[in-house]
């Protein structure tokens, strides 16, 4: 009995050291936002469900350390266009990707589109989101922004789609019509990099949609992460030699982020691995959230 009591006391004493400390909590129009702090790690959490938690994390002791594989995978998209001058990013998160981009490309101008004002605020207050004369934040729905940008004849060298949170998919940002708008916003050398997931029936539909909009694309999956990054271009896809050359050219700028870009070249899959008969998602048919709850 005594032993049990001591064990319980010890367990209780060690609890606060390992548990997440919630340093900010707010209910926005779109979701519950929580900022957690553990020893040296601060995370933005959109859902309280265990398996779908962190949107982004930073290492507060080493801010240049990129914690999440999908963030690193996003930068692999730069191998398809290593000299972007103007970028568009849909979905801000903690602003990590934007921070790295404006650091490694001193000339890059970037439009950041985030539908949730509260996410922008949290990125500023808790995630060292860097803003300067080269960044512009637009608090608006991604689809509304792209449609307006198409009407205004805007062009981007790099478009990053990072609006899927894992708990809810904005279905109007998954359709062929949206992808066609994105494609028409790209310059001739432009590249779109999309952060998404694998492991549900949605995989086939999403792949079919990207293929219908862009033709063949680069498919990047890392084992055990569940993450998937799609890299598509308006013109023909660069061959592996070009990807390698770009990786070597960019590498010195990414050394401090502990990221070896060339490793990704061999990981890009060019062969379709989805069910070839799958229909593309359209504005008329896009039950993405229902499909995501189904297994492949």
């Amino acid at each position, binding site marked *: 009995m005594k032993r049990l009591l001591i064990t319980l006391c010890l367990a209780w004493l060690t609890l606060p050291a390992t548990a997440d400390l919630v340093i900010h909590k707010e209910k926005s129009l779109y979701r519950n936002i929580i900022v957690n702090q553990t020893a040296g790690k601060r995370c933005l959490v959109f859902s309280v469900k265990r398996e779908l938690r962190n949107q982004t994390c930073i290492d507060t002791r080493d801010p240049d350390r990129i914690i999440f594989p999908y963030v690193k995978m996003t930068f692999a998209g730069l191998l398809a266009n290593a000299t972007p001058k103007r970028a568009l990013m849909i979905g801000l998160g903690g602003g990590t990707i934007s921070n790295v981009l404006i650091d490694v490309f001193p000339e890059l101008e970037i439009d950041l589109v985030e539908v949730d004002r509260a996410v922008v605020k949290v990125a500023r207050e808790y995630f060292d989101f860097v803003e300067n004369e080269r960044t512009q934040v637009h608090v*608006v729905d991604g*689809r509304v922004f792209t449609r307006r940008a198409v*009407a205004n004849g805007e062009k981007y060298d790099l478009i990053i789609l990072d609006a899927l949170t894992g708990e809810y998919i904005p279905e109007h940002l998954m*359709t062929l019509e949206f992808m066609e708008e994105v494609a028409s916003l790209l310059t001739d050398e432009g590249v779109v990099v999309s952060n998404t997931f694998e492991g549900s029936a949605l995989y086939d539909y999403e792949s079919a949609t990207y293929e219908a909009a862009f033709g063949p694309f680069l498919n990047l999956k890392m084992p055990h992460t569940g993450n998937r990054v799609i890299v598509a271009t308006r013109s023909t896809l660069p061959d592996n030699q070009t990807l390698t050359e770009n990786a070597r050219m960019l590498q010195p700028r990414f050394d401090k982020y502990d990221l070896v870009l060339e490793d990704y070249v061999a990981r890009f899959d060019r062969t379709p691995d989805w069910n070839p008969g799958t229909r593309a998602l359209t504005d*008329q048919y896009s039950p993405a959230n229902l*499909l995501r709850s189904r297994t492949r």
Partner: protein
Amino acid sequence: MPSKEFLFNMTVFSLAFTSGFIIMSIELLGGRILAPYFGSSIYVWGSVITVFMVALSVGYLTGGHLSLHQPRLAKYGFFFLTAAVTAVPTILYGENMMDWVFMRIEDPRYGSLVAATLLFFIPTAILGMIAPYSVRLLVQETHYSGKVAGGLYFVSTLGSALGTLLTSFYLVLLFEINEILTTMATVLIVCFFIALITDRTLTPEDHR
């Protein structure tokens, strides 16, 4: 053999159920239809719900007025036909209308409100006329008017609940939006013929 009056009443209840089903199915698809132009934020739903509520209230008022003048099941059927016909431009030219609004109104809140009005106001208002007119067709004695109205709200709201559930759980997974809308319009036309035929065969003497 059920009485003519029973069959007459059942027809009115069934048609009211169908209109309740279709109203909510279209309302739910409304948010989906507007999303590619105005996003899927809370204000888009605010626009859709506002337009449907205002349209229904106008419909209730008008339907009530129309029920004063020689109410007939055949006239009632024309609400269904007119709703179907006025939904056709939404199906065929919805995108053009939203494009037109999008290019003229920058703020997606007002854009979605105007677009929802253009797309859904008229067919919804006409569907709204069905409820009060149904009450008039069913009520024979003022003593029972509350009971009849209660039964009618019960049936048509249950239809709305089913329309919401089936559309959001299953129909969007099986069909394209325009396929669902076209089917709804076709069902409304079928309702028109049912009303017409029932009027010819079953209208009780005191309704003639």
